[in-house]
């Protein structure tokens, strides 16, 4: 039970990133690999500021700005220099590895000794349930904020940009600027997942972001599949499905471990899961 509850908390921590991937992949149709780097960036900034005595709430804006900066660099490379979005993301992600290592100073920074979001807000005896309720609240708040953003005139313009650039251009929307802003928001959300996760697992590690973009993609795809299954297409429900997808993904991984699969194979399983979600519908429709 504790085991699966942890998986759910983990899924909720990663929901922010899922929302970010939703923005890049579903709204802008851009495969953004910056995620791997900005996730670790968020965790690194959090770890180093916590150990130097900052309060967790003061770290939030710093993490968001750091992530947004990473995203805007990818956006700038993509829109201004005309580099393919995938390559732009890989470039920034690779560069961020060194940045993150410089921030951390070593490959792993433990956070056992510092106060953090979960220890400060703990309000019931059971630490795990306390964490569960905190991240649940945080996720609902994030989903609500993203939802409101996407409903505003600016948000409609954002969604239209991914849909038809000819149209948005003719309606006075600067597509390049819009994509850069979208990538910034997405990576700020991803960095925020790093912020949450570092405090949940009580360490930041230089390698924690490897392949994390797949987890995000998986969440969005599971969410999308479930959404299609239930014929729910409103933006709000789509965002809820992303959260459910993120949780489902972690529960699936936890199940894999609990039935005795070697944890070293976790990345392979993640990749196969995502491949399965993308590929199975194609296989089914062909037969």
């Amino acid at each position, binding site marked *: 039970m504790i085991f699966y509850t942890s998986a759910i908390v983990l899924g909720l921590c990663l929901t922010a990133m899922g929302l970010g991937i939703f923005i890049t992949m579903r709204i802008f149709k851009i495969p953004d690999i910056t995620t791997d780097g900005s996730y670790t960036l968020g965790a690194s900034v959090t770890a180093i500021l916590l150990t130097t005595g900052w309060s967790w709430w003061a770290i939030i804006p710093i993490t968001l700005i750091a992530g947004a900066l990473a995203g805007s660099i990818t956006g700038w490379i993509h829109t201004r220099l005309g580099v393919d979005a995938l390559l732009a993301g890989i470039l920034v992600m690779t560069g961020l590895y060194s940045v993150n290592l410089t921030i951390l100073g070593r490959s792993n920074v433990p956070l056992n000794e510092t106060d953090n979001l979960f220890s400060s807000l703990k309000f019931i005896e059971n630490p795990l349930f306390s964490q569960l309720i905190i991240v649940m609240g945080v996720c609902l708040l994030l989903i609500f904020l993203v939802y409101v953003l996407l409903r505003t*005139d600016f948000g*409609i313009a954002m969604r239209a940009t991914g849909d038809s650039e000819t149209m948005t251009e003719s309606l006075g929307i600067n597509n390049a600027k819009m994509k850069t802003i979208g990538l910034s928001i997405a990576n700020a959300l991803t960095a925020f997942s790093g912020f949450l996760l570092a405090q949940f697992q009580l360490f930041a590690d230089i390698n924690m972001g490897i392949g994390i973009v797949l987890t995000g993609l998986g969440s969005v795809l599971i969410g999308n599949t479930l959404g299609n299954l239930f014929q729910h297409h409103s933006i709000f429900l789509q965002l809820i499905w992303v959260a459910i997808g993120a949780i489902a993904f972690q529960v699936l991984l936890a199940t894999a471990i609990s039935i005795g699969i070697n944890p070293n194979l976790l990345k392979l399983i993640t990749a196969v899961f995502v491949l399965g979600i993308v590929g199975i519908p194609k296989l089914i429709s062909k037969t």
Partner: protein
Amino acid sequence: MLKLANINKTYHPGTQYAVPALHQLDLELPKGTFCIVIGGNGSGKSTLLNTIAGTIFPDSGDIYINQQRVTSLKAFERSKFVARVFQNPHAGTAPNLSVLENFRLAALRTQKKKLSIGLGRSFEKATQENIADLGLGLENKINQPMGTLSGGQRQALSLLMSALDDTQLLLLDEPTAALDPKSSALVMQTANHLIEKKHLTTIWVTHHLKTVIDYGSRVILMEQGKIKKDLEGEKKRHLTLQELYSWFA
């Protein structure tokens, strides 16, 4: 209203594939002119339209809208003056957004898209009334994704969208080319109705010679990047289909 001065545009300049698309082109369009542009393939019609819209920049020459030089403004900056309807209905509308959201964006063409929610009841009601004029029953589908509608329906809606915000110049690029005859007639009538009701300054590029007879106050024939014929007023009104055919002979 619109003035083009000595516009030159060559594609692939300096190579053996160089194609002169517009050659020393001058054009002046007074306010309220409904100008129809015809010409063979490769005559420069689309280049002309795209140059005015700002998706193609001329090699030399200047473009003025309301005495303001807009030559170096990008397409999204020129949208303050220019509304467009595209040949492909999919280009002019966002398929995954609802009809209402499409209309909201079009209503803000010349304005900033702010971080405030503009999809209120009053906007919804105004949109429904606007769409009801088409007589297609689409006013009950405003919350449906645009992509679920047919090409003809989308094109009729994008025409309405083009005139939602302050439109000084309307550019139509063969808006009926992708449509069946029935949808085509609907779009044609909607366009004409809109242009006459709002006295829009319009440039309508078409291959459809009947359009020239039925609509417009001026007709221009393009050939090899130049204006070959330019008729308006009485002369335009007395133009016959036969004469038009002879232009292409």
